[in-house]
């Protein structure tokens, strides 16, 4: 089950009627995100790498309100006690293992299987990196790995480029969501091609989670305004001067962007239109 696709056109058509008193859909419930049958109240996902300390990670998770966090299997030992995994389970969040660091479909599939063993979950955020400097996804390898993992019964959430055709292919082969990038991982460059992100939202019928490139709160809000169903933030929070404060900012931004999206923005105009009618005003004469 996924939610109705909320295109700019349909949002405009629904207008006021469609948004039947969503005073605060993001905050007040009734606006949950469902991915592969799992319901999430928070539309913010958090990457757990790169935090200065585990204590700050725990505080940032609490401030973000997120319910789902990604973990790189290759960088953690699920069995180590007192480590990252304990912190995450104490925080009450669910884990989404990823295949970070994999460069071939073969490595990614093997890593996903290890993650299934280690974390007892079929969910996998699939990453297949094609270039060491930009960390951009390798499209053919990504498709190959996604196909195989879907066949194996995984719930696959692929990290992909902002190519609407590729996103469509991934959705078509059975991925539970698609996770297009705004810009390269850790670059903080925001959403470089908003048009493509909007197109992806139009063209796929599974949730779209904006992944990578978020630099600050307005980037996350823009993603939600473009129709993304959720945002994943990692470096933007973990490498901020104050990660806990930035986590709170991201939470507010995702909620604001979601509210604005569902509220239905006004069309852009070339010329002004007065917000207050000027008929019937008293003539005060020259002052």
């Amino acid at each position, binding site marked *: 089950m996924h939610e109705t696709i909320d295109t700019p056109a349909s949002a405009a058509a629904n207008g006021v009627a469609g948004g039947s008193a969503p005073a605060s859909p993001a905050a007040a419930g009734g606006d949950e995100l469902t991915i592969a049958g799992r319901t999430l109240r928070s539309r913010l996902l958090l990457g757990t790498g790169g935090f200065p300390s585990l204590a*700050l990670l725990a505080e940032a998770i609490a401030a973000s309100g997120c319910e789902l966090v990604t973990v790189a299997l290759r960088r953690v030992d699920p*069995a180590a006690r007192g480590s990252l995994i304990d912190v995450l389970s104490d925080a009450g969040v669910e884990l989404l293992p990823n295949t970070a*660091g994999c460069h071939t479909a073969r490595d990614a599939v093997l890593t996903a299987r290890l993650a299934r063993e280690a974390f007892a979950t079929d969910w996998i955020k699939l990453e297949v990196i094609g270039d060491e400097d930009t960390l951009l996804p390798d499209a053919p390898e990504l498709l190959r790995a996604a196909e195989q993992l879907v066949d194996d019964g995984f719930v696959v959430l692929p990290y992909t480029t902002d190519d609407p055709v590729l996103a469509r292919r991934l959705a078509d082969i059975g991925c539970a969501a698609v996770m297009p990038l705004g810009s390269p991982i850790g670059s903080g460059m925001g959403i470089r091609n908003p048009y493509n992100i909007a197109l992806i939202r139009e063209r796929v019928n599974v949730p779209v989670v904006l992944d990578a490139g978020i630099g600050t709160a307005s980037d996350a809000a823009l993603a939600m305004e473009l129709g993304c169903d959720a945002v994943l933030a990692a470096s933007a929070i973990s490498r901020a001067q104050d990660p806990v404060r930035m986590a709170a900012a991201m939470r507010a931004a995702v909620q604001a962007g979601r509210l604005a999206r569902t509220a239905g923005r006004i069309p852009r105009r070339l010329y002004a239109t007065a917000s207050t009618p000027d008929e019937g005003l008293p003539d005060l004469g020259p002052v």
Partner: protein
Amino acid sequence: MPNPAGAPDVLVIGGGVIGLAVAWRARERGMTVTVLERETIGGGTSRVAAGMLAPVAEAEFGEAARRLLDLGLRSADMWPAFAQELQSAAGQDVGFLRTGTLLLARDADEARELERQIAFRDSLGLTTNRLRPSQAREREPALAPTVRLALQAPDDHSVDPRLVLAALRTACESAGVQLREHAPVVRLETDAAAKRVTGVSVGKSGEPGPTRDAGDRLERGPAHDADDSSNEFLAAEQVVLAAGAWSGQVEGIAESLPVRPVRGQLLRLRDPAGPGLLSSVVRFAGGYLVPRADGRYVLGATVEERGNDVQPDAGGIYELLREAIEVVPGVRELKIEELCVGLRPGTPDNAPAIGPGALDGLTWATGHHRNGILLAPLTAQLVTQLLTGEQLDDALLATCDPRRFAVDSTSAPAAASPDAPAPKAVLP
């Protein structure tokens, strides 16, 4: 309280740099001291450490990091005198080098990040120098011409931890500290009320000199049976827990232990042409190079949440070499002497756990994470003062208080517990 015959005043669990420094200083104050080491003296994390005394280079954003910086600066100030005293006591060099440290940016992205770091250090009033590429390469001609910007921390020096360990061992032995190897402490023993430590139980060591592979492996749970009747009981007035990443293998500590192993891989390299390639410690995204006086270099280090894995892997070593060679092309010519894996004892907020815990008679001196060598003089001083019951600097002790990790205890000051993650006022 009378001691059982032959029982020392202080038992120190762990024969790494922290345990030995504590033992040496406590012995100097007239206490009788026995060090219990699960394997061989100085055979664990201390031996792998690079030995950077670099509080300024390692400064990070945030309140907790600020307190850790204060600890580091204080201990860095103590190092020259500590090295001097240790050298005279042991009659051997500890490899203290006034290297200074350079933080390097290789491209525009890294330069922007480094500018941010420079501004941050300026805001803290730390002594640093911003160097243009030509200035950096004048200082270190082996740097690649692609260096874009450098930050010099002129007071961040280095020691050779292996020489420090050897000197501490000699100093301890000649002062009359008992060093017992292959003596794994399996449990703290307490009085009937479980309020006060009375001593420790030492398990049977395996065959003497277990292989590094098996010996360093951190199993889940104690490697030895705490209830084995052949365990040996050792009484003591005071016990100091300085077992680093292995602290979790000691049973009977009242509170849950906030120390986890954080894996680091590094290489030890040697220049067949002798010293001269680098004279400063250089740090770059993804690693650092620490020069010794004799043409040896330490290239480190990964930081991995993988405590059970003590074998170096190709990817980790490759990445360290790749980054180092990009910054200092001459690294290509160095010989590889050793690949090492160390297990840093990490705590939730990266600061050490020093001081009394819930049990009377137990003093913590563990959880030093990346800073064990740097913080050794300060830790030894604090612990010795605690053992002798002296008045202590409250601010320092609060930063290091082992009870700050308590989950449910009312005695917990400003708990950083992940169980109670109530965010501090994060919105204005």
